[in-house]
């Protein structure tokens, strides 16, 4: 490769910026397993795998959950290009609280890549059933790729909770 050609390639990369963004984002893709010892205590769930897939501006966040014999697999698909409305938005709830997804409710979701694609930010206003009727839970979530790319940290803030929920995941290398 000549010196001139290298310069041309560099200029192209800077102009489009595509590889610099797409590459880290795709690093979030894959299966991640909760490390309970390094996470906020889950209540009512004993296992949690997070499966992330990126398709253009759409990011699917699949939650494979387990509690005793109960297994649930639920996917939230968010769009980093525009706000979206998600039916049956799944929230990893503390199951010993009387808070339930509102039946038939839809959730307004905004998502964006941050930190040159190493962080996915998701903001959601989700309707929940409470004993007094219905309320809106405002959620702020950041899925952050940790240095070394083998770990993922999920930081979850609620408008109504005085402290963050912090979950740490380890990448699962799946056999081919």
């Amino acid at each position, binding site marked *: 490769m000549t010196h001139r050609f290298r310069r041309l390639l560099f200029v192209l990369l800077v102009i489009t910026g595509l590889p610099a963004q797409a590459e880290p984002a795709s690093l979030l893709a894959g299966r991640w397993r909760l490390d309970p010892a390094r996470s906020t205590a889950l209540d009512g769930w004993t296992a949690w795998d997070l499966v992330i897939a990126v398709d253009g501006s759409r990011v699917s966040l699949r939650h494979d959950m387990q509690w005793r014999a109960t297994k649930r697999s639920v996917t939230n698909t968010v769009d980093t290009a525009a706000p979206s409305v998600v039916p049956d938005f799944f929230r990893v709830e503390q*199951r010993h609280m009387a808070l339930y997804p509102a039946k038939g409710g839809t959730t307004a979701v905004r998502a964006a890549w941050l930190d040159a694609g190493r962080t996915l930010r998701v903001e959601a206003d989700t309707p929940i059933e409470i004993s007094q009727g219905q*309320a809106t839970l405002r959620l702020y979530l950041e899925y952050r790729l940790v240095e070394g790319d083998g770990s993922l940290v999920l930081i979850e803030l609620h408008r109504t909770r005085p402290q963050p929920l912090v979950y740490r995941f380890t990448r699962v290398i799946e056999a081919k």
Partner: protein
Amino acid sequence: MRRFIFLLSLVLTTGAWGADSVRSAFVMRWNLDWQVAGGLPEKVLLLSLQGLANRAAPQLYIVHPPEYQWEITGPLFSFYERKHGVKFTELATTEEALTRFAGSGKGYVVWDPAVAATMNVAFTIAGLEDALVVTPALIPLVEKHGLKPIDDLRGRYNGQTDAQIYTDAVARYWARCTHDAIMLLGGHVGAVRMPGMADWGVRQKMFFHDLSANPRHPEELALEQKLFSQLTPGATVFGWHSYGKDTEEQHTTLLSSYGLKMEGLHNLPNLSFNCQFSFTPGFKFTNTHHVARAAQLTAEAKVYLAFVQSDSIGIGVWTKPGRGKLPFAWQVTMNWTKFSPAALEYFHESATPNDYFIGGLSGPGYMYPNHIPADRFPLLMKEARELMAVLDEHILEIMDNSAADGNAGNADLTKETVDRYYATFPDVLGFINGYGPARTRDLRDTRPLLSYEYYIDPRRPRAEVSADLNELIALNATRPYFLLVHVRESNDVNSLVEIVKQLDGPVEVVPLDVFLKLAARNKTYTTRYQDPADPKHFKGYR
């Protein structure tokens, strides 16, 4: 007729020994070794001996270490000494126990630890034939005390399934067993088994089994359904389900669908002794009511919080540090008025002004009301009302986990079930529901029905518990907010005191009767029943 004889025997035995009957008895102090390959065989022998020795009179009591699930055996031992004047003589070894009580048995039956179900078959035989239950290794010991073989199960059931073994046992023994009760001696399986309730089943000549209520075991399920269908109406299933075969939810659903009552656990000790003592003369339950039945209270703009502990008091928070520092409601196993009145008197005697007793669980025993047949409901609940009257209780706790998965999931009541409770308990202050959180709520005349808003898992970090409660408080923004909290058995009250200090806003912890009276006057909660569309972990048998 069999039911009459069973009740008569209880009446004749219960109440035989009041406080003024100074009498002697024997006590053994056991360790925690329940290994099949260790201490279990000797304990099985002694449990059969205890059941037989206590047939005619309360003679043998067992004190377990404080770490045993039923931690009250020590305090209750002292209670018998102090309040009933029992003079206990200690028996240090199995040899000593046999020397004193071998005459209670007519012989022995041999079980085979390699075929687990033979232990239960042997216990059934023990009750019917007055036999001690031994492993082959213990034969020389009992023969030394003059006992002869009555039956030997070695080889009889080799290679057979539990369904086959119990089918044979039903054919041989069921007709002679009481049909007013049955012993589900499951619980721990494998290397450790803990049949601490066996003395009671032997004394009362019950049929022992650990049949599965899991639809994955259709032969066992069918046999158990046959047995349940042949029990007398309102009979009691003592013991507990097998941890290796099915779930608590499945078994309680099954027995409830036959209108039966559950009384556990499988390791509940000393019923053969406890059932023979009445309340001490002049004793009468007087609950610490904080509000009159007809009172009307006005709620302020604040959060009202009430703590409840179920799971039976004897395995609960009662002996943990801090009791009395907060208002606390305790769900009493009401059936103990029949089987273990001294234990109830002990709890009552040691109650602080902050301890308040409520009835449960769902009725005169542990049962899931969504599955109780309509024609069985009135009679069962009449019994519950009578027990609540004896215990001076004004609130009933209901629990139906038939559709739940453990302490998470759907714990709601159908509207039909709620209608039945309101019709059957006109005099209660109200009802509470759930184990984990639930969302069945109602208010009719002055009687609210509220479900738990939160369940405190003893393993959950206290800071997270505080944050959870604060989040519920923030989301339920209308005041007053009625925050009902279920405290799982092994929590302690001291930690709850610290949690309450971390809660936001005006919060008042109030006794449960005050809580319900306030909730009756200011309904800030919705009315809701089980929605047929709500997810069900287990859909039942029909």
